[in-house]
Structures are given as C-alpha cells and as structure tokens.
C-alpha cells in the first residue's frame, strides 16, 4: 500500500479488524476494497487475518474458554483433527436452527440422538495442578533440588530461556520460552553418586474433590512434553530424553526427603523416552506417557530428564517445552465408535 493512501501497513489490518468486529462503516469497507484490489501481498495477509478471526470467533470458542482446562475428545483417538471435529460438532449444536430443522425434519431424530450420545464417551482435561507447563512464568535458573512444594519446577541445573522459536512481543519482550537442560546432577539423597542426568521435577497435587470421587479404572493420566535438541545433527554424545511420572499416596511436600528411594512404592508410573543425537532440521520430539490413576492417589511426580551417554559438563542446546498433564476420564459405559455419531 502506498503512503499516499494515508494507510500504513499496520493500519491496513486494523481496518480489516474494525470491519470484522462489526464496527466498520461503508466507507471503511470501500477503503478496504481498494487496498485489497491494489496489493496482492496485502490480500495474502488479509486471508490469513480473516482465517484467524474466523477460527477465534467461530471455531475456537470452546478451545479458548477451556485452554489448559478442558478439551473434550472423541473416540480415544487424540489427533488434532479429531479434536477439531469434536469442537466443530459442539459448535454445530448452536448452528442455525435452519440447518438443524432441515436435518431433523428430514432425518427424524437420529441427529439429536447422536449428539446426546456423543457426550458419554471420553473427556480429557488438564490437571490444573501442573503449573507453567510452557515455562512462560519463569526466567533464568530453575530452583535447585527436588521440589518441596507442589506446582513448582525445580531440579538439577537448568534455565528458562528464549529459543529460536520465541516470538517477539509489541512491548519488546518475547513469548515462547523453553527450559534448557544445562548440567547433569546427582540425586539429592545421594550427592556423592554419579551425575548422570539433568532432571527437573514438579509435584502435582491430586487431592481434589473431583479426583477423590473417581473410581479406579475410570481415569488415566497423560503426561506429554515437547523436547528440542538443537545441537547439530549427529552431535556427540547422544542424549536420552525422558518424560515420566510416578503416582504416590501420601503427603506431597514430604517427598523431597525420600526421592528417589520411594520410587518402588509408586502406585503407578509411566515413561516415554527418546535418544537424540541432535537435529539439523530442528525437529521437536513429542513424548507422551500414560498410566491409570489409582483412586487412592494423592500426588504425582512429573520428571523430565536429559541423560547424556557419557558425562558432560554442559548439555548444550537441549530444551523441553509444552509440558502438559491431562486426566482422561472414561466412564464405564459401553464403548462407542464415536467419529461422527456412529454407535455400536
């Protein structure tokens, strides 16, 4: 857009924003039309902006309202596509009465029936006790040692910092921090032991009324994390990346005295790992571990680790981010093949 039109780059999308929010005048729409006709690059920006506004306004309201809280999924499959189908499905409950009337009128009550059935399947929600899984609230070095309180990260030498994927913000800051594993350490209860692994932990309290009301077999925990080994490809030594959890009964704040000796007393545990030798292509590795949640569980210890094959003073650019702990509830109802309303 030329400056002679009196509208600079930022103002062009602000103009589009005004119209898309329902605040634009006829004159605004005319101005936008001229801008779009004149500039192919701006049309491309506009397409992306309209796409975003549409997704936020129409498609993601459930997602937005439930960010890090509740995500309802279908069918045991956890793909993004499935979730979007489900979100779309939920949206479609409020879609025009015209469409619903048409479908129901033509097809009888099966649509309404299938909608009500779908809610019975599986729900997945974030365990709110896991704090700052994106490492956005922290900066600098992580507190050292096994955590003595719940919902706080601590462990071996590690630091929260900006990665190449961070996004600059308008106020000069940035979003998109990650946790870098710095130096392997020894177990807190065996300080003379070998420093083989850089471990960070968070204890998550599970003693909530909702969780207390669950029966064994109804729920499972899912721990997920995204690891990033930004060392060059074929870096030495290889580093094993771990994402694991241990479910315990007892007082979470006392666990630091006995970690890791009490590991054998865990009611349940799960782990996922990946051996990495760097990645020239900056490939993130998604690890996901799942275990059943026993009804007597009081807390879970989340452990993320980077373990080099040979001793290393500094692990280099090995990061973890996007840690999430989710509770999957599967009531003991007849299993259904849910995608798009089919029942069996």
């Amino acid at each position, binding site marked *: 857009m030329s400056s002679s039109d009196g509208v600079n780059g930022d103002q062009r*999308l602000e103009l589009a*924003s*005004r119209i*898309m*929010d329902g*605040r*634009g005048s*006829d004159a605004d*729409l005319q101005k936008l*039309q001229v801008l*779009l*006709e004149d500039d192919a690059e701006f*049309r*491309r920006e*506009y*397409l*992306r*902006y*309209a*796409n*975003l*506004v*549409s*997704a*936020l*306004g*129409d*498609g*993601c*309201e459930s*997602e*937005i*309202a439930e*960010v890090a809280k509740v995500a309802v999924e279908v069918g045991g499959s956890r793909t*993004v*596509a499935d979730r*979007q189908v489900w979100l*779309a*499905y939920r949206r*479609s409950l409020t879609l*025009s009465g*015209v*469409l619903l009337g*048409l*479908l129901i009128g033509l*097809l009888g009550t*099966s*649509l309404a029936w299938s909608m009500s059935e779908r809610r019975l399947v599986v729900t997945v929600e974030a365990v709110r006790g896991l704090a700052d899984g*994106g490492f*956005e609230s922290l900066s600098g070095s992580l507190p050292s040692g096994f955590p003595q309180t719940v919902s706080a990260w601590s462990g071996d030498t590690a630091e929260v910092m900006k990665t190449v*994927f961070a*996004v600059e913000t*308008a106020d000069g800051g940035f*979003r*998109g921090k990650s946790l870098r594993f710095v130096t392997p350490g020894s177990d807190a209860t065996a300080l003379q032991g070998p420093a083989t692994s850089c471990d960070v932990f968070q204890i998550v309290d599970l003693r909530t009324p909702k969780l207390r009301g669950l029966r064994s077999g109804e729920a499972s925990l899912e721990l997920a994390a995204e690891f990033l080994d930004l060392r060059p490809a074929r870096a030495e030594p290889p580093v094993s990346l771990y994402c694991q959890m241990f479910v315990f009964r007892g007082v979470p704040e006392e666990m630091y005295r006995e970690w890791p000796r009490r590991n054998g007393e865990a009611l349940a545990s799960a782990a996922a790992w990946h051996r990495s030798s760097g990645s020239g*292509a*900056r490939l*993130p590795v998604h690890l996901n571990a799942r275990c059943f949640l026993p009804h007597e569980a009081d807390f879970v210890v989340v452990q993320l680790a980077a373990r080099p094959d040979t001793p290393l003073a500094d692990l280099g650019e090995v990061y973890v981010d996007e840690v999430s702990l989710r509770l999957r509830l599967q009531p003991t109802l007849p299993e259904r093949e849910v*995608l*798009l309303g089919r029942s069996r």
Partner: protein
Amino acid sequence: MGARETDRHERFQGLYLQHEGALRSFLRTLLPVPSDATEVMQNVAIVLWRKFEDLGASSEFRRWAFGVARLEALQFRRMKARDRHVFDEGLLQLLASEAEQDADLLATEREALSECLQKLESSQRLLITATYGDGARLDEYSKRSGRTAMSVYKAIHRIRMRLLDCVRHRVIRRADR
C-alpha cells in the same frame, strides 16, 4: 430412516464437520462483516445438504463446498449491493480463488492456533475468552472491565497480530520437520 438415508446423513455430517472451519473462514474472507458471513453460512449448509447427491468422491467435498459458498456469497452480494457497500464481484471472485489456492496453508494455521493460544498471557486469554466466548460482545466486555471500547478493540487486534506471528512460526516449524 432407512439404512441408505442413514449412511447419507452420516457421510454428510462427517464431511461437513470436517470442513466447517474452512468454509467459515472462506466466507469470512469474502464477507468480512460478521453478520453477513453468518447468514450466508446458513444458506450454504442448506444447499450443501440438498445437493449432496451431486458430490462425487468425498475427497472433493471441500472444493465442491467452496464452489457452493462462492455462489451463495455472490448471490448475497447482488442482493445487498442495492442497499449498502459490499465487496464488488471482481474482488470477491479474486479473493475466493486465492482463498481456495491457500486452503491447505490456512487449515494448517487453524490447527496451529490452539497451540498459540496456550502461549498467551492469562490476561490476554481472558480478554479473548470474554470477547469471543458464548457470543459475548466486545462492548459489554469493555463496560464490565471499565476500559473504553476503543482500548479493548485495540487490545484484541494486538493479540490477533501476536497470534498471527505465533502461527506463522509454528507453521514454519512444522514444515521443517
């Protein structure tokens, strides 16, 4: 309802839900005024269902649905153009063609959006939730929060720009995998 009709219903339902986000986005591009896009979306859904027999392979659904949506948007434009300004037909056709060409990229960006929402600060998420959730209106939010409507609108726009940046990064990152 017979088995054949049930199959047809389920097939339509599946395809419609799979592509509903893309369709909404497509229409919003052509008709940026929110109430216009909503109205046409309803018509599109009805036409798609009525003409569903015309669809060949399921893989053609999006292209077919975009075609229907383009025609419905044009018809809507002709009707409304008598009373007020709407994009002219040439621009509407141009936007429709470019939106179809970029449909895969735009779908990837919508997928990446949920990850980016989680990266927002809590106050920003609250603002987005308050203004988009359950049809709440920006004006109502501004009254409740004691901010001027203009300040809320600007904040929303800034958040959207931030999300666009984030989405762009995420898509590049996925492409590198």
